């Protein structure tokens, strides 16, 4: 053995230490880079959606002069108000009036200026304010999608030319697109709305919650509190752990084969969608529920048993209320996942064009993420911003649900 001690101040040793510290710094920088890259990707994704989507909440409107007394041959405000307003408005041929008015004002470029739903907008304005009909009015109406795209950014050269001509007359302005929040799917991107898809999502979620929450909670209580150690219990545990990791599209295949084909339930309805998503969400709730039940200390159970409560009373009077915040947190997270789920809903036929909001649980409907998918497939340029706008709405809801779950966890979490 070499008897000389290590010379820590020697040049070789100093070099080696410097090299090791440099490696340390490099490693730390790599770790930082990994976190930073993930964050940058998320920020880039959100900003892209925000940048495109905010335009989707706006629409371009054009000024149209209506000489109502001349156009309607002297209709009075009284005629289109009151109980017979509907019939009176229907007999007025509003689409014809709109066409006439815009033709008079814009002449040869008037063809295809307005969106398909413009006559409906005029009708609604007259319904809200019948006195409009007695005088000359200037109304702002939404323009066709091609012009909308051309006015907001750059569109087809033809549309650009029209927009430039109109802008010179000061005839265009940007307004808030209420139709987007209240309407349904349409073929014209300037007339689409997300209300129908949103209502479909809400109804689907209602079914999912009604089925998955009670079943999930009861199963969690059984497995954690009562289940004897036997083969059946093992099988239940294996099934639940496995179901939680099965790809969602498989649940869609199950829904198609069992609910639609075997039971003959109505295709693309909120009922079948909710059932399918409930099967998918239930294991998530069971796993979260079991962790919440497990964290209730045994002393609570023993105290309740000690003063004469039966096992069922112990669980339902003491354990369940204490575990409920944890169970609710898990449920909200599971529901948020179900709300953003698309693939199983495609499998059960929720990809049809549905131009109206569903009325009941068995009506054909669509859901918000499916609507996003369907719009993303459209060729028309006007759909790009609508897709992003729908994504913003979906993300706001998901972030809200997750924030609620985090708040619940922090507010009610008990450390024993």
């Amino acid at each position: 053995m070499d008897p000389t001690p290590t010379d820590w101040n020697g040049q070789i040793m100093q070099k080696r230490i410097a090299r090791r510290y440099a490696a340390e710094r490099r490693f730390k920088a790599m770790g930082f880079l990994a976190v930073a890259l993930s964050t940058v990707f998320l920020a880039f994704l959100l900003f892209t959606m925000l940048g495109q989507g905010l335009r989707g909440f706006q629409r371009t409107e054009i000024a149209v002069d209506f000489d109502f007394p001349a156009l309607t041959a002297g209709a009075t405000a009284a005629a289109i108000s009151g109980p017979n307003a509907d019939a009176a408005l229907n007999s007025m041929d509003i689409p014809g009036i709109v066409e006439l008015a815009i033709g008079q004002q814009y002449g040869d470029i008037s063809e295809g200026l307005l969106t398909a739903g413009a006559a409906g907008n005029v009708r609604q304005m007259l319904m809200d304010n019948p006195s409009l009909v007695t005088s000359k009015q200037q109304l702002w109406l939404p323009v066709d999608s091609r012009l909308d795209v051309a006015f907001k950014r750059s569109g087809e050269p033809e549309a650009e030319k029209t927009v430039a001509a109109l802008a010179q007359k000061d005839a265009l302005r940007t307004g808030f697109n209420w139709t987007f929040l209240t309407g349904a799917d349409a073929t014209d991107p300037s007339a689409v709305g997300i209300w129908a898809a949103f209502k479909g999502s809400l109804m689907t979620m209602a079914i999912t919650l009604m089925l998955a929450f009670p079943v999930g909670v009861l199963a969690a209580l059984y497995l954690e509190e009562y289940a004897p150690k036997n083969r059946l219990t093992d099988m239940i545990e294996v099934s639940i752990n496995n179901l939680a990791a099965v790809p969602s599209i498989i649940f869609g295949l199950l829904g198609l084969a069992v609910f639609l084909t075997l039971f003959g339930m109505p295709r693309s309805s909120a009922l079948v969608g909710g059932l399918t998503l409930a099967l998918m969400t239930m294991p998530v709730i069971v796993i979260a529920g079991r962790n919440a039940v497990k964290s209730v200390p045994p002393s609570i159970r023993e105290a309740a048993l000690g003063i004469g409560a039966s096992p069922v009373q112990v669980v339902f009077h003491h354990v369940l209320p204490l575990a409920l915040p944890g169970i609710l947190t898990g449920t909200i997270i599971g529901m948020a996942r179900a709300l953003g789920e698309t693939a199983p809903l495609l499998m059960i036929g929720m990809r049809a064009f549905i131009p109206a909001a569903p009325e009941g649980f068995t009506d054909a409907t669509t859901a918000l993420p499916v609507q996003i998918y369907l719009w993303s497939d459209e060729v028309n340029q006007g759909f790009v911003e609508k897709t992003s706008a729908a994504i913003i709405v979906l993300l706001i809801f998901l972030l809200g649900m997750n924030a609620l779950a985090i708040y619940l966890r922090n507010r009610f979490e008990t450390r024993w």
Partner: protein
Amino acid sequence: MTGTALLFLVLGLGLIGWISGRARAATFVRSAKSGPRGTVNSLPYYHGWFVAICAIAPALAFMFVWQSISPSLVTNMVLSAPAAADLPQEGFARAAILSEARAIAQGFQTAAFQGGSEKLVPLYKNALSYYKWIGVAATLLLLFAGGAFAFTRIKPDFRARSKVERVVMFGLLVASLIAILTTLGIFASLIFESWRFFSMVSPFEFLFGTEWNPKSTVTPGADNGYGAIPLFWGTIFIGAIIAMIVAIPLGLMSAIFLTQYASATVRKWMKPILEILAGVPTVVYGYFAALTVAPAVRDFAVMLGVSNAASDNALAAGIVMGVMIIPLVSSMSDDSIAAVPSAMRDGSLAMGATKSETIKQVLLPAALPGVVGGILLAVSRAIGETMIVVMAAGYTANLTANPFATITTVTVQIVALLTGDQDFGSPHTLAAFALGLALFVTTFFLNYVALRVVKKYREAYE
């Protein structure tokens, strides 16, 4: 009376049963307190629940059974009428007329399009109302019989609590059995439909064929374009190779940085941000991949001199999928590193090793089984992922390792095969189930191995 109204009536009557049972038991409690002897076995509300359960449970069970058998009873009654004798015997036309007449009778449809259906409408109306009232009467009869039976059983020494608790325990057991039922349902439906598929197309062609170009009519023995090798390859290439090249370094390094280097404040803010990445719906990732990442990747490929770069290339889908998986890899690595006993780490640091040397030479080797288990789970998530590949990857099967080419995956083809109005028995639809079976078996196997590895590793340090 509709089904919903009947359901509410049954539940309302059950509530009345609950109130009356409880009230009757309450009189026992009062007399037991003032009387000379004896106590009441159960609290009054248990008696209430006993009456309510005895009343509602048989009625609901009957409603459920009736719901499924009454349609065929109605059809039989309509067919036995003389007006139904001149219906066409051929199955499809006959079924169309019958279902239309039924829809009109129920008010779902207003006008008749099939010849001969409108004269069946009154028959259907009659039969429907006849069986509906039988159902309502029988339901209510069962409800009152059950309630009355329970009500007469209520006595001071009646053990209502143990009876109710037995029902509760039964309910708990049934709720847990739903998980098994679902698993069995998935298995049964996938295997049953796949078996039908393999009776048309040979399993050999499906598993080992290299040409995927499914024909809608199949001829036994010939090559029908159902060779799934390109799909399996595409799934592995996108989900297990490209996505993992992105997710493993980023996820692992994020976990190391956040647990070993970052200050508490940074950790408090960065962890939720990574969780947001996991909470973004896959349809949003898919849209982002198709709209932003894929064109960028194609431009990059063109810059590199790859001339045949597709706009729906595999690389874009894989990268975005990898980003989606980062939080999963990160949290699994986090757990495994945290499970390594701190004595090992402290010993290494005390010997003069730097932090990174400790991590690379002590923590990671010790945590390796847990990390590998996490990666297997991540792979299983990635190959089952649907929306990103449906929106960003292509539909053309392609057996190539070129990341700039169009490659399709199993999940994309399942969606593609089930799109459109195809007959449920067609080979296209059934092939989707065969692909689903392959996917299910693979992910099941991966999850099983991963959970076993993680569990074994945990036990080693406990």
